[in-house]
């Protein structure tokens, strides 16, 4: 009798997705659904000013594993050849013709966008954040995330995840002071090169930049594994040869 009761409880728990998945699992699935662990992608950053004027940047990105990511600006002409590299908490910017790559910080923005360097060279969320609490809301999971270290750009994230697709729909990014820095909106899911459904547009606005909006539009995300040597300072000036 006891065995049957335990089996029944186990079956009930298995049937309930919230019970089957803890916060950390959901966050890992969100990461896997947003992008492969190692990939290359082409994306466009679009900054829209309150006047409606817009400025666009085309980026090619390579990511490998948990903590290696490099991005190369292909357009506009004034930014062509600029490259950024991130190895864990270390970030560098290479400007062709200027000198050796210089160290930059994750809160800066190399484009002048609402997106900062941490957004443009984002590592997986579960690499940088722990799930403090998880709540079930109508059609969504709400995850309260805290940064694992002080080196992370945002101290706290509030993430709403669609229960069916396990893709985020909205993320609020907060500073340690509790100040809302920006909100990210994930839009227009579409199948990418590997057939997986992913949001093609990431939109952001910020109370710090009222009236400004920025978009990150993904056109290609393809699994690709390159040698670790590509993610080094000495290779950064040659990064375009990997395209």
């Amino acid at each position, binding site marked *: 009798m006891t065995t049957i009761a335990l089996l029944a409880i186990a079956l009930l728990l298995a049937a309930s997705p919230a019970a089957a998945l803890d916060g950390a699992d959901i966050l890992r699935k969100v990461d896997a659904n947003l992008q492969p662990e190692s990939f290359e992608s082409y994306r466009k950053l679009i900054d829209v*000013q309150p006047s409606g004027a817009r400025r666009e940047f085309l980026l090619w990105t390579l990511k490998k594993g948990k903590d290696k990511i490099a991005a190369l600006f292909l357009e506009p002409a004034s930014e062509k050849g600029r490259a950024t590299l991130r190895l864990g908490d270390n970030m560098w910017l290479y400007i062709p013709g200027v000198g*050796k790559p210089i160290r930059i910080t994750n809160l800066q923005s190399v484009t002048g966008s609402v997106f900062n360097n941490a957004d443009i060279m984002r590592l997986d969320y579960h690499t940088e954040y722990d799930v403090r609490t998880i709540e079930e809301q109508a059609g969504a999971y709400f995850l309260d995330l805290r940064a694992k270290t002080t080196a992370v750009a945002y101290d706290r994230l509030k993430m709403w995840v669609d229960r069916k697709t396990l893709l985020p729909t909205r993320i609020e990014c907060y500073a340690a002071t509790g100040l809302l820095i920006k909100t990210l909106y994930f839009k227009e899911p579409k199948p990418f090169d590997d057939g997986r459904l992913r949001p093609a547009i990431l939109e952001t606005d910020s109370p710090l930049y009222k009236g400004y909006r920025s978009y990150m539009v993904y056109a290609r995300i393809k699994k690709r594994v390159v040698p670790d040597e590509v993610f080094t300072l*000495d290779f950064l000036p040659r990064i375009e040869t990997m395209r």
Partner: protein
Amino acid sequence: MRAAPGAAAALLLWALLVPAGALRAQGTDEIRLEDIEKEIARTVERPYHLGGFLEFQPTLFGLDRDAAFYRLQFFDRDEGATAAQYDLRLRLEGSYRKDIFSLFVRADALTTQGDLDSESRIDLLEGFGSLKPVPGLALDAGKKVVKWGKGYAWNPVAFIDRPKNPEDPELALEGFYLVAGEAIRSFDGPLKTVAFTAIALPVDRDVNEDFGETDHLNVAAKLYALLFDTDLDVMVFTGGSRTTRFGVDFARNILTNFEVHGEWALIRDVEQAPINERGQAMRRVSDVMSYLVGIRYLTERETTFIVEYYHNGPGFTGGQMEDFFRFVEAGDAAFRSTGNTTAIRRAITLAEGAYGRPNPMRSYFYARASQKEPFDILYFTPALTTIVNVEDRSFVVIPELIYSPVTNLELRFRAAALVGEPRTEYGEKQNDYRLELRVRYYF
């Protein structure tokens, strides 16, 4: 005659600013995924790139007719209180890649018209081919800038690069002809990367003749490591064109918004020949050290501070530089009273060498503060830079405004005020002040 470049400037500005209005009018929030995908597909398929910029720069110099370097330049004539100069520069950059081979070229065509100087020239800044059989191995051959060092304004360990202009350190430099091999390995753990670079640099009458003594094959090597999140380099140069030298540098983020960096170089057998006030040279050969320490700090309000201290080992002391200025004064006085140009011409020769280099003395302090997009003006960056000669307390102050009203158009306005007592470095420069506007359009 002087009005023509001004009219050309106005015309160029007008031509560049007209598309700005057109682009603004186009601004909408519409995102068309299909269009973006097509645009990206076109970019992906291209194995080549051709681009660059067109730049127009009018400059007004406020001349200091009492200064030593003015008297050296114009000892037999008076150029007045101000002088204008107009520079038109076309920068072309091209690259091509196929399989493991790639080619890169950067060249300048420059025309200068001005009250003091007029010239036109074409310079090949860089032009080299690369073989990259695997990502961790590369071989470059041709004219290349090597870019060693972590400093922003100065790089004492840049043994085979031309010196930067500390007043404008982001200007592209001209390279030297060389062959360079590079091997990179990555690891897990505290030692993340090791890279080794070896360079051979020939110098003869036709190749790299301005590098140093001719008819020598020079070699240099650098070992880089990313260890405990710190960039570390050890480098060495030897060969007959310049004396042997050793260097180390480092850079590390102590906080996410606070970076420290430094360079140290030991230069063997440096020949120094300072003159006394009578112009007699005292030749001395010794080993000297140069070093630099600096920080880069970003505030929450996105103000970036760069501060550096530079010790220039082979530089002149305050007393040696004063002796040089006294010699110039004596040579100028001799010319004015007797017409004898012997002394002033010797001083001119000296000024073309070590005395006339940018920052020829021992100790310098550099500070730059730049504010990103103040008053919510997007793509606008004001900055203030100063370089202080620590020994003689003379300095230059450079306020600067950079604005990019539309994509690919950059406007930069700069002023420079040179301040110093007589017989100090900045007090004896040819100019008291400088005003410049740079209009650059990228294509």
